[in-house]
């Protein structure tokens, strides 16, 4: 799994994940997500290029979202594909890992 980090305006860090968020993928991004989560920024994770997710990937996303929330920030998932979206929904994570479908929607959600 690859991870690319940029700025989404001045509202958030944008994290693009590419590949499979399985046991190897989760290990590959663990430290960088943890560092980001401690930086007191909002985070938008672009999930559109994540082809597969397993529960260990969900675990890392939940851990990151909780760390961001502890710093009064917000974390959003941007445009996961339908298969990944279904995993998130079945897992009952729509509250702690809210999904937006565009950067505009993300920015609007972060302004609330």
């Amino acid at each position, binding site marked *: 799994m690859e991870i690319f980090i940029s700025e989404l305006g001045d509202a958030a860090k944008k994290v693009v994940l590419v590949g*499979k968020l*399985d*046991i*190897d993928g989760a*290990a590959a991004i663990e430290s960088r997500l943890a560092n980001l989560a401690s930086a007191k920024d909002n985070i938008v994770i672009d999930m559109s290029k994540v082809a*597969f997710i*397993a*529960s*260990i990937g*969900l*675990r890392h996303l*939940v*851990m990151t979202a*909780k760390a961001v929330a502890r710093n009064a920030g917000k974390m959003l998932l941007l445009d996961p594909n339908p*298969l990944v979206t*279904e*995993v998130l929904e*079945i*897992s*009952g*994570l729509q*509250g*702690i890992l809210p999904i937006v479908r565009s950067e505009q929607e993300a920015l609007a959600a972060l302004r609330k």
Partner: protein
Amino acid sequence: MKPRMTGLANMQKRAFAANQQSVGVIDKWVAEIARGAGLDDRTAFAARLCIAELANNVIQHGLVTPDDQITVTIHPSRERLDIEFQDTARAFDPTSVSGRPAHSEAYEGGRGLMLIKSYASDLRYWHDGRFNHVKLTFQSDDRD
């Protein structure tokens, strides 16, 4: 009693070391067979996800040693996979776990078995005194 397997002519069986490096290898193999069997994208994804969850569970919670193995037997037939997952980890019955989220959203773990129960069309478990056996069925449907 052991569930009967179908499609014996196309049966494929492989053994893997019970370690993290094997998970990606198993996933690629299951994906390849799912494609060959003509499964739709969701059903192929379901098969891959369930096998990944079983493998992760063995590796992370099964108290495995370097000698432990995971053996996967796949019986592909038209738009269907029957998969038997066998491991030498400590006995554990995944069918005994609730199919619903058992924790609050903030809980960080424990969703793998719930996903297996949600995604497999059929799920059975038995222990033969030495090995755990999990038999799963994935059948394409017309939801797409």
